[in-house]
């Protein structure tokens, strides 16, 4: 509860900061302090300290898992703003507005980690999505950005409509918006309930950009300013996953018969579309958007979980994937163009930066000693324990080895092809900030359990 109230409040504070406080650096620092305050407020709830007593009529329920997930989101956002602060202020005239939007997105994410009611799910998704539409179109002078925003908005509204339809069906079948699973016997009687489940499933797939609902992703991620693509592809997307898992893994697991049939199809098509299309991309940014679709395919494995591996795995996957993506997008922001050619010879001129990019790419590819390895490991383990079939894992691994192809293409461009990289001004401290991310990824790659220590005690 604390997190939802404080993040919304901080969003308003940032809006006022946009005209009362001049200086982008100050605004960034306020946002960072706000995040620290948010983290503390969220942790305080664990100890039973509340900002305000609110009776939610069981529409929200706060679990240890949800609160911990919130903390991770805030920490990731902190790292994101800490690194990208300068770039954010280069877009538009009022950087603080964007920080306000981030806080609103976090507010939506906090609802998505704790909803216990389909209406709250709807509200959470909307609070999360609308700021994202604005962020996509924030580069007002760029046609691509505008086009992407319109596209995202139209498609997003459409999927929200489908979500609402699904919610209505479920209400019709059970007579309640609450997420408490109804008596399984109604499933035999009411076709409506299954239809509702499947409609919500489709809408959620849209939000996490799983195929065949992924068509908006490449254009939107490509059109949006790169800094914001970084945020959308990482934290916002992860929040969608948490909501997805909260509905299907926690609440509607008994009804796996209905949505469980579609799941493997969705996973395989997501992996295929993401990985195969990424191979043919000539722009690094577009390659990364397809790779983010491919990674979504892996994260969907968490829906198979009947073990702690699924919960732990999705957290680890989220964190590691977000860290690596934030890192690689932060490198991309500094490039003058998005093509692979721009990276030629980067290893010669910027050896440390090239090395850090290699760590991020290796993590995305799932190579040992980086966190990405254990993320994939946990996912495979979850699926195998759930007994979902060896074929699915083998297919996923074949696609994982295809992913190595396009990730390593970038490594090749940096290390093995001579040339002058098209890179902008870069101060030392920026590289060191990226090094912090890389170190975190490497630590998680050797001791993944560090992330779970706080989940249980």
């Amino acid at each position: 509860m604390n997190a939802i109230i404080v993040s919304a409040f901080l969003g308003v504070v940032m809006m006022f900061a946009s005209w009362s406080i001049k200086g982008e650096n100050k605004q960034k620092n306020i946002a960072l302090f706000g995040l620290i305050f948010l983290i503390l407020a969220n942790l305080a709830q664990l100890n039973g300290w509340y900002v305000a007593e609110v009776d939610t009529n069981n529409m929200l329920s706060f679990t240890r898992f949800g609160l911990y997930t919130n903390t991770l989101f805030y920490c990731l956002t902190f790292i994101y703003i800490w690194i990208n602060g300068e770039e954010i202020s280069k877009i538009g005239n009022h950087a603080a507005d964007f920080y306000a939007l981030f806080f609103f997105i976090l507010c939506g994410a906090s609802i998505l980690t704790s909803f216990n009611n389909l209406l709250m799910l709807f509200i959470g998704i909307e609070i999360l999505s609308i700021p994202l539409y604005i962020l996509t179109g924030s580069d007002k002078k760029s046609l691509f950005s505008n086009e992407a925003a319109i596209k995202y908005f139209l498609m997003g509204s459409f999927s929200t409509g489908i979500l609402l339809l699904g919610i209505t069906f479920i209400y019709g079948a059970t007579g309640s918006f609450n997420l408490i699973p109804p008596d399984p016997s109604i499933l035999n009687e009411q076709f409506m309930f299954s239809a509702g489940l499947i409609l919500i499933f489709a809408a959620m797939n849209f939000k996490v950009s799983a195929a065949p609902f992924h068509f908006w992703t490449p254009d939107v991620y490509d059109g949006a300013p790169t800094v914001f693509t970084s945020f959308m592809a990482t934290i916002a997307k992860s929040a969608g996953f948490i909501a997805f898992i909260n509905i299907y893994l926690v609440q509607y697991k008994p009804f796996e018969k209905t949505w469980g049939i579609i799941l493997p199809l969705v996973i395989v098509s997501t992996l295929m579309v993401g990985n195969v299309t990424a191979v043919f991309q000539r722009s690094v940014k577009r390659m990364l958007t397809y790779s983010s679709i491919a990674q979504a395919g892996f994260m969907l494995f968490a829906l198979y979980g009947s073990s702690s591996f699924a919960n732990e795995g999705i957290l680890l996957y989220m964190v590691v994937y977000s860290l690596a993506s934030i890192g690689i997008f932060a490198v991309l922001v500094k490039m003058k163009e998005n093509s692979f050619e721009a990276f030629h010879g980067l290893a010669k001129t910027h050896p440390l930066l090239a090395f850090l990019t290699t760590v991020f790419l290796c993590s995305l590819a799932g190579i040992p000693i980086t966190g990405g390895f254990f993320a994939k490991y946990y996912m495979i383990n979850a699926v195998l324990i759930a007994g979902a079939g060896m074929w699915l894992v083998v297919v996923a691994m074949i696609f994982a080895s295809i992913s190595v192809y396009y990730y390593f293409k970038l490594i090749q461009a940096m290390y093995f092809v001579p040339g002058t990289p098209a890179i902008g001004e870069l101060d030392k401290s920026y590289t060191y900030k990226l090094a912090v991310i890389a170190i975190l990824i490497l630590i998680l790659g050797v001791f993944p359990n560090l992330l779970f220590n706080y989940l249980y005690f």
Partner: protein
Amino acid sequence: MLLSFILIPFVTALLLLFIKNDKSANTIAIVSTLGTLVAAIVVAGNGAVDFNVPWISVLHAQFLLHADGLAKILVLLTAISFPAIIIATSQNQPKQKNIFLSLLLFTQCGLMGVFLSGDALLFYFFWELALIPVYFLSSIWGGEKRIAVTFKFFIYTFLGSLMMLIGIIYVYMHTSDQSFLIQSFAKANLTGGQQVTAFALFFIAFAIKMPIFPLHTWQPDAYEQAPTAVTMVMSAVMVKMGLYGILRWLLPLFPTAFVAHINVVVILSVIGILYASFIAIRQDDIKRLIAYSSIAHIGLMNAAIFSHHQIGIQGAMFQLFSHGINVLGLWIVADIIEQQTGTRSMQQMGGLAKKQPTLAILLVGFALANIALPLTNAFVGEFLMFNSLFQYNVWVGAAAGVSIILAAIYTLNMVQKVAYGEVSTQINQMQTINKPAQIVLIVLLIIVFVTGVFPQPLFDLTADSLQQIIVK
């Protein structure tokens, strides 16, 4: 003690990143690898206690290093190969030599880890760790087509190791105590069908690494394009990872599935042996010739292991070591010739015996070992292996036996073209070869003949592993 095999290369590799001077970098690398060699000899002589610390408590993964005979013989091979390679190629001047050497030592670290780990997850970690530096080494310092070729090699092996990862998790789920230790894996409750699944997943990884016949296409190109030091590492030590995997993981863990697949694998191996031998005969490029000859020899070892007789496995363990030494000698000679004449085509060589008698004698020595002539180490190993293959099936044994004749054809043909005949213009350019490389070659040749005449110490070394494998 066992930790030193990981730590010495690792720390030196990190240190080398900061040493810009080529000479001192080279010296440090040599000292470090010689240090590892001393440690390896001590461990091989006395044995060592296991090194065991908890690693990832949630998964019950442990950092367990364990040295039995099989591990010791391969650690010894690795420990001998690396100083030999670095000393013999120290005249070569790659750009940024310190980084080159550093990556080479990271590879050594990974290889040592593969051979020593007694925990499946750790094994997987090191398995990948040995691959990644090689990818960079070959792609940066390799020949003309290096990038595409190395990429093929990398993706091929990476796909294999991902399959092995699934296999590891699959077996892990079926262990009674949820542990990655090899003992727990051996006790896992797997039905026949489950064993076959796990067997297939592991086998793909090992088969690609060795490589076995239909999966071998990456190898000749990769060997040809890699810088010679890396080719030496790959063919002397890295291919042994696949055979080691079979002896350590496949055979003891999935005995039922192993027995069920004997025929398929042996036949594939024999096809591979003959196929590679015939292609080797047609090669003009000396590096490609050695590469194909290596495929044939590895195929023979694999066939012998899968023939599932004690002597075959014993011979294969012995040959793991011998083949590494022999092929290393051949590569070093080939590298010296290539560095000094600038050609790898045997057409353009000739008359080495007149121009460089010492080098020619050494070449003939290693060539004889490659044909497995009596008195050389390869004879001992191949004798046992053929014996085993004949016991398995006379026709298969006979077919594989043809490879000895074929080996004689292509090896002697090579010796004839390179060492005898008129002195060609290319060979005529050769200067005196440097002393260190010469010493390395002589030491290797001594090992070839000493272990050929007195093989018993090596058999004693591997006796305990053999006992364990046979008991299963």
